[in-house]
Structures are given as structure tokens and as C-alpha cells.
């Protein structure tokens, strides 16, 4: 049975998770592992395809050097197993009896056909929580449609509104449709864990990437459902036009004029610089004028003015007046963030070899008593085969070797 340690330092200590997931679920597995769960990544013999996805540590692109792998698999253990082989499926079924959670991203029905569906693994493990993350969920006319991060982002309604009016709809940087699915799945799993503590009951969780994205767009659904007009691409402007990203002297800066004070302050500064044009006149006092037919004229003046100041000048001037203004930071500046260092968000840790320190991103939130931890780096391929197959399952070493030579492990 799953180990239940009360008073463990982390909230999920003692909960064992079988992580069968691909890119859509790997972040969910990481969230659980970083919060204390014993997450066992089940890799196909030879290693998970993610191990050969870049970027890489500079000295070579072998399966232990993928930063993608290292990032998303912190604190996990690794076993190798060919689950499509009947012996492999049998072994997975046995391992699952010691697990509290199964996390998977296969197409609907795939694991059922291998005898590894929820209804199979439930036998003898009624508390099992089984989370299936798929592009469109387990039911409905699109359930067998294929999707990637890009097309999930499109079908969920976020892509249409992102980008400039004169560019194609645009994805967010990074695999945000996948991560949103993982974030939502983690919530569902935590709810199920809480329910199980009360009742002993496990349950099945069906997570849809399309819905995960659709519930994350902020305004796409409410705009249409409450005004009848679909939201459109606004480019550098946030929907309401009170928030926009401007080109300035040394890059880009975000300026928000969502309050009367911030709108007045901006116009004052522009006037002092002699660049307010007619914006100082009474006609422009109401900040909602930014949404009207004069918006192009106003934006032209703001843009011309913004080019005369640096990101830092604009940021500091706005922040000193309690306006939420800030620089659009470039990727290469991220490690310079003093707030993230000061709060211990960045964590320096040795990765594979002694002395090889790397900076890891840290806790997404700080819990005062049961915090996020980086206990150990991502595992090597099958690093924990022996301790799990022989130690936990009691498989004799020669049988393990035989299964390895047959390519099952």
C-alpha cells in the first residue's frame, strides 16, 4: 500500500504517482514531485523522447543533457518499461497497486486496450486516482482528434485573439496549452486526493486541453457570451486599450492607464516633455476616449513620446506613482531579476557532475510549513529500475536481467 506519512514535511510526501505522461502532462508530474510526491516516470526502453529535445547542456546532446528533460522531471524517479508488451503491461499493473495516482496522456482507449485502463487498475486498488490528460477529453465527437500545443491553443480560443491585427493568430511563447492542461490537472488531482482522505475513494479524472485553454483566456468567452461580439486580435494593446506595450528608447515597456490618475499623470508627463500635442485639452480628460475613434491619434502621440524615454525611466516614474508600469524584459535578462534572487526563487543546484552548478526555477508559490523543494535532479534512464522492480516488487535480479535482454525493461 501507499505509504502514508502524517507530518511529512511536504504536502504530498508518501503519495506515489506513476507518470506515464508525454509533453502535455510532464509539468503536472513535476508539480506533484516538487511538492513531495514519489513520482515514478515510466519511460520506454531507451528513454523518453523528451530526452532528445533541446536545448541541451553545451557538451553534447546525449540523453542526459537535455535541459527540457532536466527541467520537467526534477524530483522524479525513472524506470523503463515497454507497456505495449504483455509482460510489461503485467508489470505495470503490479506496480500500480503500490501507487496512489496514475497520470497519463495516451489517446482515449489506448491503455484500456492494453489492460491498463482505470477499470483494470482499480481492481485491488480502490483508492486509485487515475488522471487522463488528452487534447479533447474522453467523450464527444472530437475525442479522437490529434492535437499538439499549437492546435490545442487554437481550438481553445486563445490563439485567435493573440497577435497583431495584421499578423496571423499567434501562440504564446512556450508550450502554454500543455502547461495549462497540467496546471488544471494538478488542481483536479489535489481535489481527488482531498476527497480520498475523507472517503478512501479514488476516482477517474478526464482533463481536456481544449477546455483547459478555453477556461484560461480571460475575456474570449465572456466577451462573446455577454456582448455577442467575438473578441479580436489587438496586437500590442490589451483588449480594453488601457494597457499597451510601447516601443521606447531601449526596448519595449508596458504602460497601463486604467485609472483616471494614471491617464492624467501620463498626459502631464508628455506635456512637460512638450509632446502631449492636444492631449492636454479637456476633450481628452476622460480616459475612455482611448477606446473611441480618436484612439489612433492618441496612440500616435503616446508612441512618439515613449521613444524619448528608456524602459527604466518609464517604469520608475510610473511605479513611484503606484501605476502598474514595467519593462518588457528580454529573455537574456531574466536571470538578472533581483526580486527572484532575493526571494530564493532561483535555486542553484548541481546537476549531473559535482561542481556543475545550474540555476533552476523554483517554487511557484511559497507555503510556510510544507514548502516546495528541489530534492534531486531529473533521473537518468531507468535509474531506479533495480530499486523498484527488485526492491518494491520483489522481482529476482536474474528475472530483471532477462526482461532487460528481451527489451521489456
Amino acid at each position: 500500500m501507499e505509504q502514508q506519512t502524517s507530518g511529512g514535511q511536504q504536502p504530498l510526501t508518501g503519495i506515489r504517482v506513476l507518470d506515464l505522461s508525454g509533453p502535455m502532462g510532464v509539468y503536472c508530474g513535476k508539480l506533484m514531485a516538487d511538492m513531495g510526491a514519489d513520482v515514478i516516470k515510466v519511460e520506454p526502453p531507451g528513454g523518453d523522447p523528451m530526452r532528445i529535445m533541446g536545448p541541451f547542456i553545451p557538451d553534447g546532446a546525449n540523453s542526459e543533457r537535455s535541459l527540457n528533460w532536466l527541467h520537467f522531471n526534477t524530483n522524479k524517479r525513472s524506470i523503463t518499461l515497454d507497456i505495449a508488451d504483455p509482460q510489461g503491461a503485467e508489470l505495470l499493473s503490479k506496480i500500480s497497486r503500490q501507487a496512489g495516482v496514475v497520470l497519463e496522456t495516451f489517446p482515449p482507449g489506448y491503455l484500456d486496450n492494453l489492460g491498463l485502463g482505470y477499470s483494470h487498475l482499480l481492481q485491488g486498488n480502490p483508492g486509485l486516482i487515475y488522471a487522463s490528460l488528452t487534447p479533447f477529453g474522453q467523450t464527444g465527437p472530437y475525442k479522437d482528434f490529434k492535437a499538439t500545443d499549437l492546435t490545442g491553443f487554437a481550438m481553445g480560443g486563445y490563439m485567435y485573439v493573440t497577435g497583431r491585427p495584421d499578423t496571423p493568430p499567434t501562440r504564446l511563447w512556450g508550450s502554454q496549452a500543455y502547461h495549462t492542461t497540467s496546471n488544471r490537472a494538478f488542481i483536479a488531482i489535489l481535489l481527488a486526493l482531498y476527497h480520498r482522505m475523507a472517503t478512501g475513494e479514488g476516482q477517474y479524472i478526464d482533463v481536456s486541453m481544449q477546455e483547459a485553454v478555453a477556461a484560461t483566456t480571460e475575456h474570449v468567452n465572456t466577451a462573446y457570451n455577454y456582448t455577442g461580439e467575438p473578441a479580436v486580435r489587438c496586437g500590442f494593446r490589451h483588449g480594453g486599450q488601457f494597457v499597451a506595450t510601447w516601443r521606447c528608447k531601449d526596448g519595449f515597456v508596458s504602460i497601463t492607464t486604467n485609472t483616471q490618475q494614471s491617464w492624467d499623470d501620463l498626459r502631464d508627463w508628455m506635456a512637460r516633455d512638450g509632446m502631449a500635442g492636444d492631449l492636454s485639452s479637456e476633450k481628452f480628460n476622460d480616459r475612455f476616449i482611448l477606446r473611441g475613434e480618436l484612439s489612433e491619434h492618441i496612440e500616435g502621440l503616446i508612441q512618439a513620446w515613449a521613444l524619448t524615454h528608456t524602459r527604466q525611466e518609464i517604469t520608475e516614474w510610473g511605479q513611484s506613482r503606484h501605476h502598474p508600469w514595467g519593462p518588457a524584459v528580454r529573455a537574456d535578462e531574466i536571470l538578472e531579476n533581483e526580486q527572484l534572487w532575493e526571494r530564493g526563487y532561483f535555486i542553484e543546484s548541481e546537476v549531473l557532475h559535482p561542481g556543475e552548478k545550474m540555476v533552476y526555477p523554483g517554487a511557484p508559490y511559497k507555503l510556510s510549513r510544507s514548502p516546495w523543494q528541489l530534492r534531486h535532479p531529473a533521473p537518468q534512464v531507468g535509474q531506479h529500475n533495480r530499486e523498484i522492480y527488485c526492491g518494491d516488487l520483489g522481482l529476482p535480479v536474474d528475472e530483471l536481467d532477462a526482461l532487460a535482454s528481451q527489451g521489456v525493461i
Partner: protein
Amino acid sequence: MSAVEKPSNSGFALQGIRVLDFTWIHAGPSATRILADQGAEVIKVESNNALAVVGGPSSATARGLGQRHNWNAGKRSISLDMKTSQGVAIAKRLAAVSDVVAENFSGRVMTSWGMDYESLRRVKPDLVMLSMSGFGRTGPWKDRVSYGQTLQAWSGFTELTGFPNTDPCGPASAYSDAVGGMAGAQAVLLALIHRARTGQGQWIDLSQFEALSSLLDTLVLDLSANGADSHNQRTGNRPPHDSGATHGAYRCRGDDRWVAISVHTENEWESLIGAMGHPPWTQDERFATASGRSHHSEELDALMETWTMQHSAEAVMRLLQDAGVPAGVVQTGADLAENDPHLQERGFFRQVLDGQGVSRTIEGAPYILSRTPGGPSRGAPEFGADQTYVLREILGMSDEELADCAIAGVFE
């Protein structure tokens, strides 16, 4: 599991949990909506004397109304002017009978009321308190002001989102708030699990900046390992570290209609050209290999559009899905609400009644839990709708007390 606390057994995972909710705008209310959907009793503390903002008491625009319902469905509301001493006293009494207190004020507000975690744990030792803020409650930037877009700019998301040959556009909406909401719900649930195991409450210091920064994929490791040799820039619709082509949004027949197509493997490429009916340009040797297609992606994209433009986005999706190629319509709000048979069959959008009996459309949870499906039972509360329930039934306040408070303007 320790027997310190037994959560309830029902179709809702969080029945019996009470949340005193001071959060406003987007991130906070979307976090507590997740809890309300699963049966938590979320009491929203509002005041006419606070700023009227989106999701706040007066949602002047239709869109604001939509957001109020979307992020506050299933909650209760009391009006309480926290500028009055009696208002603060009532809030403290409520905190003492709550499991969770959630807030996203600037740093000094809860302390000024004597309702910071250290004060509240004295009246409720196992309290879980969620404090959400832009940059966290410690560190040199703790008092900086931010909205979602500010955090997106500061984290790198704005600069990185968009096409390489145009200015950055950033996310169209406050992704940061949505992320903050998900993170807030996760953190509260983790703390409730910890409490059920140990009896201990705790304080959650949630920096939305850190929650958002956690989604920058491998960026931090890449900068750390490769320094100046790491090249993380805008890549439009292409994955940053993958030679994926064809990979993007392609214009289709109609007004601003698009389909997203995502081809990674050689098999998918073969299926794609088969579904297109093997147009002659697909035999061009520039496109014979994945790296060739990636290298000539602009020419390839233009040629792809000569095909997609002949069809509706829905037809392209169907044709390619039939051939096993990941493709999806770039759906608008109208598509999601009206034209998506899949979302309809799954019942993603929910109809709930507001306080006046008007049916409102809101988003459902993007997951289905087989034993605790939960779900919002009603729309957002009318401002101050639950005064009687909260003050009389929960706190047991007398007519006299209530009258005194009303005269003092505590319920404004």
C-alpha cells in the same frame, strides 16, 4: 493518514470548507471559484466604498458582468465596509470560523486591519491563509504595483510572444491572472491536504510573478547552462527548439478564418501532402526533408495557404484529422459558444441562474471528476445577497447588533 480531520463524503470534494474571500479582479476570484465549484462555501466580502472594478460590486459593462459571473459563480456575498471598526471586527469573527482566508490586497492592508496571518492564527490556529500579490510579500519589489500585463512584460512573456520580424505582442489577455488563479487554488488545496494530515494551518505567500515565471519552460536552465549562447527569441508560431514545419496558422476561406496545423514527423508530412491531393509543389526538393522544410518555411507557408484558402477552416481540420494530422480551427469566441459540437456535447459552458433568476452563461471546470463532479450551482451573488445568512446564521448576530452596524454604515 492521520485522523486529525475528516473531509466530508459527497459529490463535492470540498463540502464543509469555508473560505472568507477578500480577493478581487481576476486572479483571486478565479482561484476561489475553483474551490466554490467543489462545494466550498466561499463568502465574498465586498463594499460599495471600495473601488468599483471588473468583478467587483458594480460591473458596469456587459463584459464586466460576464467576468463577475464567470469568476464568482456559486459564491456568497456580504457587504462590509472595512474602513469601519465594526466591519473589521465582523470580518475577524468570520475568519475565526473559516478554514481559508484569501486576499490579494497590497501588502499593508491586512496588517492594518489586524488580519495578517500572525494575528489570525491566534484566533484560528489551523487557518490556511492565501495572500496573492504581484511580486510576493517579501523582497525589494514587494510594494511594486502590477497587473497581469505588467507581470507578463517583466517575466519575458511579452517580449517572447509574437513574430520575429514584428514588434512583440505579448499574450492578448491577462494570462498571468489565470495562472495566478490556478496557482492559488493549487496552493490552498496543498495546504488543506497538509492540514488534514497534520492539523497544521499555514500561510501561503503567492507571488503571481513567480507563478508565471515557472512557465518559462527551459529558459532559466538554458540561460544558466548556455549563457550568451542561448538564443531565446520570438519564433512566431514555431516551437522555439524544434525544427517543426509546417507549424502555424494558415488562412482559410472566409473573413479572418484560420486553421492551425502542426506537423512534426515525416509520417505527418506525408499524410498532409496526401490530404492535400499531392500538389506538385510538395515534390519540390527544398521540402524533401524536415530541415529543408524548416529552412524554407516561409515559402512553404505561402504555398500551404494556396491550398487552405480554398477551404473553410472546419473543412481543413476535418480533412487533416481524417489523415491523422494535428489540425484545429483557430476558434473565435463565437465558434466556442455556437459552432463547436464537441464543447456542446461535453457541456463545457454552463447555464446558471443569477440572484434575479436570469440565466447566465459561464465556463465550467475543464476537468471531469467521476465521483466529485461538483459544478457551480448558481451564478454570482448579488452584491450583499447573503447578509442574513452570514451575519445571523453563521455569526449569530442579534437584531440590535445588526441595527447598530447598519446605522454606523458598516454594510455600505
